[in-house]
């Protein structure tokens, strides 16, 4: 299980290969990539800035990975989350989960994303032609997380 928070972009193919080739009992890899969209709430996006809480981020993401590993039969997981200034079509986040079989890998990958969206200390600020604004948290993200609560 690995967590990286970084300003630099990441190479999905390279990250996936590393996980994939690390264990020959892996039969399934599910991955999620989030990217900056060109329009949000009806406005064209110029830049997106990701702020985070450096002391807490790593710990929060690791806790999510541990929870996923306890809930499902998976082999490994990776979270890479970027911070700093980005533009439309830039990659923001990568989550990869490997396992023997696909069901648990799908479940764990979506779980990690739903928790990351609601529990990891990141905040997005957009610049549009109207100026800067902080992105509001979405009710739909809380609902997505609530599905997993036992």
């Amino acid at each position, binding site marked *: 299980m690995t967590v990286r928070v970084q300003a630099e972009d990441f190479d999905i193919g390279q990250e996936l290969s590393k996980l994939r080739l690390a264990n020959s009992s892996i039969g399934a890899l599910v991955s999620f990539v989030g990217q900056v969209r060109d329009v949000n709430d009806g406005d064209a996006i110029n830049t997106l800035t990701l702020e985070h809480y450096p002391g807490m981020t790593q710990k929060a993401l690791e806790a999510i990975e541990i929870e996923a590993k306890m809930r499902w039969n998976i082999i490994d997981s990776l979270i890479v989350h970027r911070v700093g200034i980005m533009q439309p079509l830039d990659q923001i986040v990568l989550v990869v989960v490997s396992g023997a079989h696909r069901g648990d890998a799908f479940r764990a990958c979506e779980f990690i994303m739903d928790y990351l*969206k609601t529990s990891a*200390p*990141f905040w997005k600020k957009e610049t549009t032609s109207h100026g800067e604004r*902080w992105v509001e948290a979405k009710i739909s993200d809380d609902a997505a997380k609530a599905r997993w609560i036992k």
Partner: protein
Amino acid sequence: MKIKVLYFSRIKEAVNYSTEDIDLPAGISTVTALKNYLALRGDIWTNLFNGKQVVRAAINHTLVDDLSTINAGDEVAFFPPVTGG
């Protein structure tokens, strides 16, 4: 007791700084009590911490709810609902 308080995102911008050391009076020992204490500063502080806005808290890098206890030396962070991913 002495604690460290951190602010992030729009809350940091509103109060115009990101961290401060506070020496709390006796009796202020939960997140809610600390929020109420900060709200007494008036103006923007009242706006932020009077309970009308959702302000999340972390103690020592763990998300907590408002009933959680604060101890001397803790790092308490306040921020709006997160929006990463």
